């Protein structure tokens, strides 16, 4: 299993347009389209179109929108697109835990078809039977994949899904009159931090377990943590370092015996698709991010779907409406006894579900299992080659020990030897046209980086990524300043992160930018 020697690094250079913010490109009076005056016939019918809007709802001043010609708008956004390293542009294995895989473009055609885009959520059920059928059948697929009995698609992302689950855990204990006493949720430090966050938002106290010396959640610590105050366990498996906790059924048993419920964060299920199921792991709830494992693109932080599933006895708490089928027609079912209500408008982000449905249909059962097998194989190949790079280490590694779909690596040795940190490596990787991400906080593993190759990349492509990492390591040992001053070929060089921490300076809208930085200019 040796890495190909062919791997050649690219002489990459990104476009640098010094592109202004779109507001700065505005010219008063510029228009993309000049709309014709309404014809006399229409005027006679609707009047001037404005006076029918109630007086108090009419703007006195036009909104302060940028004014541009069409070509300028197009050029502006093309320039910006050239300044990114998007998933379709590079060997996108650098953002572990996010399962950035190749999403077939045919599925995009389905999602952007007018049959999807022209639907309105207030349409009568009888006119959207096809859309409801897709929602219903995707639910059936996920039931099969997880073993649980019902899924909903309302949550707009993974953390939102966790929020729905935390709400159901609370509703369950409330129904039993125990919600005052059962106020603790247990999680682990390598579970996604949104598990702790969702629990905290629902008013639970959060108890975090740390790994044992082999990197697995410490089962003795769990035994110490459970009590008659335990409301539930919210845990990921495999955790963010890619180790599968084979004692997971023991974990859920301990929590159930203490009277708590168990939630399985399967945001990323890429390494176990068709291999293990939430039901057999003893879980009451789980969720899948359709925008990770199920190949819907992430968008720019959304819109997405965190599909939440429950065991039979918890269906009574699900958010409404559920999509049901009476044998002839699909309909929206609002009759859920102890529903937590709504967690989001309507029924879910339909285009995301359509892409996932198409992806599952195109692969079938055997295809889904093949996804997991290839993702795991790719990951272990990558891991063994990274272990040969000077300065890179694999915490919790042992001879013959494999990982599932991702690994959290460490540059601790590199930093000790050369003072080059994981953020320096991140910037230097941009020079090879590669996206590289450090890791979620907290950095329990020092100088971390998490890579997840998914099933989408070939051996040669993985070799190219490894070759870039090896090059950066070599540079760190021979010319550390070169790495520390990187990037050279990226569109933006160094950002001063202290600005992000200064409320006097940060500006996330044009208006606040003007207020804080351009006080002299009138908006």
């Amino acid at each position, binding site marked *: 299993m040796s890495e190909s020697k062919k791997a050649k690094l690219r002489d990459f250079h990104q476009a640098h347009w010094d592109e202004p913010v779109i507001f700065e490109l505005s010219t008063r009076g510029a228009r993309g389209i000049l709309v014709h005056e309404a014809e006399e016939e229409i005027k006679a019918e609707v009047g001037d179109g404005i006076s029918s809007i109630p007086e108090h709802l009419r703007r006195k001043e036009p909104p302060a929108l940028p004014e541009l010609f069409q070509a300028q708008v197009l050029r502006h956004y093309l320039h910006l697109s050239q300044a990114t390293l998007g998933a379709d542009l590079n060997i996108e294995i650098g953002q572990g835990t*996010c399962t950035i895989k190749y999403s077939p473009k045919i599925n995009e055609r389905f999602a952007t078809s007018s049959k999807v885009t022209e639907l309105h959520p207030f349409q009568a059920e009888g006119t959207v039977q096809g859309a409801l059928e897709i929602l219903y059948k995707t639910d059936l697929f996920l039931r099969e994949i997880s073993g649980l009995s019902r899924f909903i698609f309302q949550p707009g992302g993974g953390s939102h899904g966790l929020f729905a689950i935390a709400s159901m855990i609370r509703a369950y204990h409330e129904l039993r009159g125990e919600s005052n006493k059962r106020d603790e949720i247990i999680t682990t*430090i390598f579970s996604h931090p949104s598990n*702790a966050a969702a629990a*905290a938002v629902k008013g*639970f*106290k*959060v*108890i*975090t*377990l*740390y*790994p044992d*010396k082999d990197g697995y959640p*410490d089962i*003795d*610590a*769990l035994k*110490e*943590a459970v009590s008659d105050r335990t409301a539930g366990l919210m845990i990921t498996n495999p955790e963010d370092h890619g180790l599968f906790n084979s004692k997971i059924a023991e974990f859920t048993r301990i929590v159930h015996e203490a009277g708590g419920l168990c939630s399985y964060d399967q945001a990323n299920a890429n390494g176990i698709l068709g291999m293990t199921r939430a039901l057999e792991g003893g879980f009451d709830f789980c969720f899948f991010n359709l925008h990770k494992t199920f190949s819907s693109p992430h968008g720019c*932080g959304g819109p997405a779907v965190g599909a939440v599933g429950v065991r039979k006895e918890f269906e009574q708490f699900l958010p409404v409406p559920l999509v049901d089928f009476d044998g002839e027609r699909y309909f929206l079912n609002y009759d859920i006894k102890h529903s937590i209500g709504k967690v989001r408008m309507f029924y879910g982000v339909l285009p995301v579900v359509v892409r996932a449905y198409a992806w599952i249909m195109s692969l079938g059962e055997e295809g889904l299992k093949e996804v997991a097998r290839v993702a795991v194989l790719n990951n272990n190949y990558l891991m063994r080659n990274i272990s040969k790079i000077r300065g890179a280490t694999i915490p919790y590694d042992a001879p013959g020990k494999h990982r599932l779909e991702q690994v959290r690596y460490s540059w601790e040795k590199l*930093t*000790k030897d050369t*003072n080059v940190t994981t*953020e320096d490596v991140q910037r230097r990787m941009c020079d090879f046209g590669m996206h590289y*991400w*450090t890791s*979620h*906080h*907290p*950095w*329990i593993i*020092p100088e971390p980086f998490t890579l997840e190759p998914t099933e989408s990349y070939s051996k040669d492509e993985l070799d190219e990524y490894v070759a870039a990492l090896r090059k950066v390591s070599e540079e760190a040992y021979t010319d550390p300043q070169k790495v520390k001053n990187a990037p050279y070929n990226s569109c933006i060089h160094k*950002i*001063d*992160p*202290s600005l*992000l*921490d200064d409320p006097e300076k940060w500006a996330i809208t044009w208006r606040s930018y003007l207020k804080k930085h351009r006080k002299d200019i009138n908006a």
Partner: protein
Amino acid sequence: MHKVGLIVNPIAGMGGKVGLKGTDGPEIVTLARQLGATAEAPFRALQALLELEILKDSIEIITCPEAMGENVAKKCGFKVAIIGTAKEETSADDTRQAASEMMKLQIELLLFAGGDGTARDIYSSIKDAIPVIGIPAGVKMHSSVFAINPKRAGELAFLYLTGKVKEIKEAEVMDIDEELFRKGIVSAKLYGYLKVPFERRCVQNIKTATTPSEKYEQEAIAADIVESMERNYIYIVGPGTTTRQIMQLLGLDYSLLGVDVVKDGKLIAKDVSEKQLLEIVDDKHSKLIVTPIGGQGYILGRGNQQLSPRIIKKIGKDNIIVISTKSKLHSLKGAPLLVDSDDDEVNKMLAGYIKVITGYKEYAVYPVSF
């Protein structure tokens, strides 16, 4: 022009290489030399200074003669101002005096190369007046004022002087008794806190929040503690900056390095001795609040010896509340919290798992060992 102080303790670290466990006192230095030790600290200071070379024209280094800083600063080509006179053999006194004088000259930052002893000497002169960065060069380095390596110390100084790092945190100055240590007994004392620049590692990723500042974490912990305090209970508050926040939230006077006692929101005793504490402790209604001291994760027996085995036994494990910021817990890199109480029974009683308060309504179940 930035005024930067530099103190190199030229003998720091010499005892370590030849197995002497420290270099405190002139006899040990002589012995170390006889055993073939050479000065390491100037070389380490040089490594740190090289990171500042780019700022050469905008820095004036205020330093001591020859081996105590002048040599390395000149080697790097810095503009150098010397205080004090050259001596054959330098001592702790020279460090203390130089630090005081530098404070008067209003330096912006003090870089020093040494170990725990040097940190102590500097602390005794400047307290919290000036930020410092420790270039690790000593045998004993229990204090948390040192950077992980000399280059990193230099880099941090660069970031601080160029305004890229603005945050300051308080770092423990600890030292152990070398005499006892040579006999195999570790007796660590917390001397105080020096101010050090602190770089928060910011990650530009929308999914990752910036780590909260240490002060914010301490405030969150204090809020949790104060909210759950019960009437008629005696709360014994151990030393440390994390526990200090509880006293500040309660609006009470406190001793940073000592043990204070609170009951029903009132301070009933400040900076108590073990003997006083023994009289105060009520075995049914007393709770003890401790936090790990220093980088090694000791919750008892290092830096808080007032909390003796007798007292711990009287209070009982169930009434011990451990608090720690997450950053402190994570800096242990998976190693357990430690107790070193001179009493096997107490060590065994506390070993196992303990619930640690890490934030407001946030806890960890964490292993304790001895």
